[in-house]
C-alpha cells in the first residue's frame, strides 16, 4: 500500500508538471471557455423571449452555435487524447530507461506499480475535469445569471463521473499498449490509430456494413429503414466512443427520450416533456455499465500482462 502510494504521488506530480498534459489542458480549457461564451450568448437572447425555459444552466454545456461544438463535445473529443497522453509510455519508457528494474528491486509488490500509475492517471483526469467544469460553470453563471438547479448539478456530476471512467478506458488502453510494445513511438501510434478507428472509421464501417446487409433507398418501407438504422447503430455501439456519446447526450440533455431510430407514428401524440433523471439513467444504463466494464477489462489485461512480464534492465 505504501509502495503504491509512493508510485501514485510520483506519477501525479509527473503528470501535473508534464508539458503534454499542460498543453492538452490549455487547449481544452480555451476551447471550452470559447464554447461556453458562444453558448451563453445564444441562451441569453433566447431567455429574453422565453423567460421560463427549463434546464437553462445545462444548456451552457450542450448548446452549440454555428461551427463551434458544445463543451461536452470538446470533452468527448479531447478526453481520449488526454487518456492516451497520460498512459502511452507508462511502462515501456521505464523499461527502456532502466528505471523499472530499479523500482521493482525495492520492497513493493509488482502490481503496486501498475495500480499506482493507473490511479495517478485517473486522479489527474479527475482534477482536470473538475476544474474545467468549475471554470465553465463560473463563466456560465456570470453570463446567463441563472444558477443550476439541484437536478442540473446531479446531471453535471454524472457527466463528470462518466467522463472520468470513459477517459480512464483510454488511459488503460494506452497503458496496455505501453506494456505490449517496447518502443514508446509504437505504443503512441498504435493507441492513436485505435482511437481514430473507433472514433471515426467505425461510423463509416457501420454505415457501409448496414447498407450491404440491408440495402435501402428513399422508397424503402419504413420497417426496412428502421432495421438498417438499428444494424448501423448496433455496429457503432461496439465502439466505446458511441456508447459515451449516447450516454452523455442523454445525461446532459433531459429532452433526449430515445436512442434508437423511431417512426413518426411512434412519437405522434407524445408530448415532448423532458425525462426525469432516473428515466434518463434507465435509458443509458447499458451504455454506462458497458463503459465501466470495458475500462476494467482493458486495465485487467494490462495488469495481467505486466505481472507476467520479465523485467530486465
Amino acid at each position: 500500500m505504501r509502495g503504491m502510494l509512493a508510485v501514485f504521488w510520483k506519477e501525479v506530480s509527473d503528470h501535473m508538471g508534464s508539458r503534454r498534459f499542460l498543453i492538452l489542458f490549455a487547449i481544452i480549457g480555451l476551447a471550452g471557455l470559447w464554447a461556453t461564451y458562444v453558448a451563453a450568448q445564444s441562451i441569453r437572447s433566447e431567455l429574453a423571449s422565453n423567460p421560463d425555459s427549463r434546464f437553462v444552466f445545462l444548456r451552457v454545456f450542450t448548446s452549440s452555435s454555428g461551427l463551434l461544438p458544445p463543451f461536452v463535445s470538446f470533452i468527448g473529443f479531447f478526453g481520449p487524447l488526454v487518456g492516451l497522453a497520460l498512459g502511452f509510455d507508462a511502462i515501456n519508457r521505464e523499461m527502456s530507461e532502466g528505471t523499472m528494474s530499479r523500482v521493482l528491486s525495492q520492497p513493493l509488490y509488482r502490481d503496486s506499480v501498475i495500480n499506482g500509475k493507473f490511479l495517478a492517471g485517473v486522479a489527474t483526469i479527475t482534477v482536470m475535469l473538475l476544474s474545467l467544469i468549475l471554470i465553465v460553470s463560473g463563466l456560465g453563471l456570470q453570463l446567463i445569471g441563472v444558477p443550476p438547479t439541484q437536478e442540473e448539478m446531479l446531471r453535471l456530476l454524472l457527466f463528470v463521473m462518466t467522463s472520468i471512467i470513459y477517459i480512464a478506458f483510454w488511459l488503460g488502453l494506452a497503458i496496455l499498449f505501453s506494456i505490449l510494445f517496447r518502443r514508446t513511438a509504437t505504443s503512441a501510434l498504435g493507441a492513436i490509430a485505435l482511437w481514430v478507428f473507433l472514433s471515426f472509421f467505425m461510423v463509416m464501417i457501420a454505415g457501409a456494413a448496414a447498407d450491404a446487409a440491408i440495402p435501402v433507398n428513399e422508397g424503402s418501407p419504413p420497417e426496412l429503414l428502421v432495421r438498417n438504422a438499428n444494424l448501423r447503430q448496433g455496429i457503432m455501439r461496439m465502439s466505446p466512443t458511441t456508447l459515451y456519446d449516447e450516454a452523455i447526450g442523454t445525461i446532459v440533455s433531459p429532452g433526449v427520450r430515445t436512442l434508437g431510430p423511431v417512426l413518426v407514428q411512434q412519437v405522434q401524440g407524445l408530448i415532448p416533456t423532458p425525462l426525469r433523471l432516473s428515466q434518463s439513467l434507465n435509458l443509458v444504463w447499458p451504455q454506462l455499465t458497458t463503459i465501466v466494464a470495458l475500462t476494467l477489462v482493458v486495465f485487467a489485461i494490462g495488469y495481467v500482462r505486466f505481472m507476467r512480464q520479465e523485467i530486465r534492465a
Partner: protein
Amino acid sequence: MADQAIIDATNLSKVYGELVAVNRLNLQVQEGEIFGFLGPNGAGKTTTILMLLGLTEPTTGAARVCGYNSAREPLKVKRLTGYLPENVGFYGELTARQNLMYTARLNAVPEKLAVSRVSEMMEVVGLPDVGDKKVAEFSRGMKQRLGIADVLIKDPKVIILDEPTLGIDPDGSARILDLIVDLSHRRKMTIMLSSHMLYQVQRICSRVGILVKGKMVALGSVDQLGKKLEAGKTTLDVEASPATPELVDSIKRIPGVLNVEKSGDLLTIAADKEVRSLVAKAVTQTRSALLQMRLQDYTLEEIYLRYFREAH
C-alpha cells in the same frame, strides 16, 4: 544464522524455451565477503541475479538471501538487498536527490531520515555537489555512482551489483571498485558483483565464481583457483590437416576429454587428464596429418580469457 550463508543458491536453474540460461548452479556467499561473479556476456549472470532477488522465478532449485526464499518472500529479500541493475537508469527529468528520495519512499524510509541519508550517500559515492542537478545531465560514471548511492538508501545488508563498471573508463572503474571495497570494510556489507572483466574482480574480490554457458565452472578464492585448475585440467592445442568433423567426434569420445573446439585446422581440447597419446592416435586413425600439438597451462586467466575472447 551464524554459519548460514547470506546468499545461498541450490541447484538453481532457469530455462528459456530451448535455452538453459542457468544450469544447476550452486553458490554460497558468506557474510562480509566480496564475491566476484565472472563470466562472458550471455553466461547467465544477470539471470542468476534476477533469481536471487526474486525478480524472476527459477525453473528449478531455490535461492535464499538472508535466510528468506527469494521466490516465496521476495519483499523480505528486497528489503535487505540492494541491487544495482546492469545499465541502471534514473528519471532524467528529476534531480539526483529527487530520484533517491523516490527510492527512499518506496522503501518506507521516514521522510526526515531519508533527506539526511540521501545527502550522506551522495557524499559517500563522491557526488556531494550535484544533488540538485537533473540526472539527464550526468555522465555514465556519475550515474553508476548515483546507482550505488541509490542502493545504499535502504541501508541493505547485502548488495548485488550487476556489471558495475560496464562502459566506464579505467579511472572511473577504479573509483567504483575502491568504493565497493570501502563499503565492505567500513559498513561490513556483503557484496556480490558480476563482471566479465577478470582483472577488476581479481583485484577486489575475496572469492570468485566463473560462470560459462549457465554452468559454474570454477568457484573459490583467486589463488586457490589458479592452482587447482593448473593441477587438475589441461588444454591441448592441436593442429591437424584436415581437421574433419569425424576427427572432432572421435576426439570427443576419448575418456577425459571435456570439450573440443575447432577453428580451421586448429583444435583446442580441454581435458582433465593426460590424453595426448590418444589424441595423436585419433588423428592418424582418421587419416589426417598431425602438424602440431602443444600443452597449455590451464590457468585461471587463460581459461577466462579464452571464454572472454570467444564471447566477443
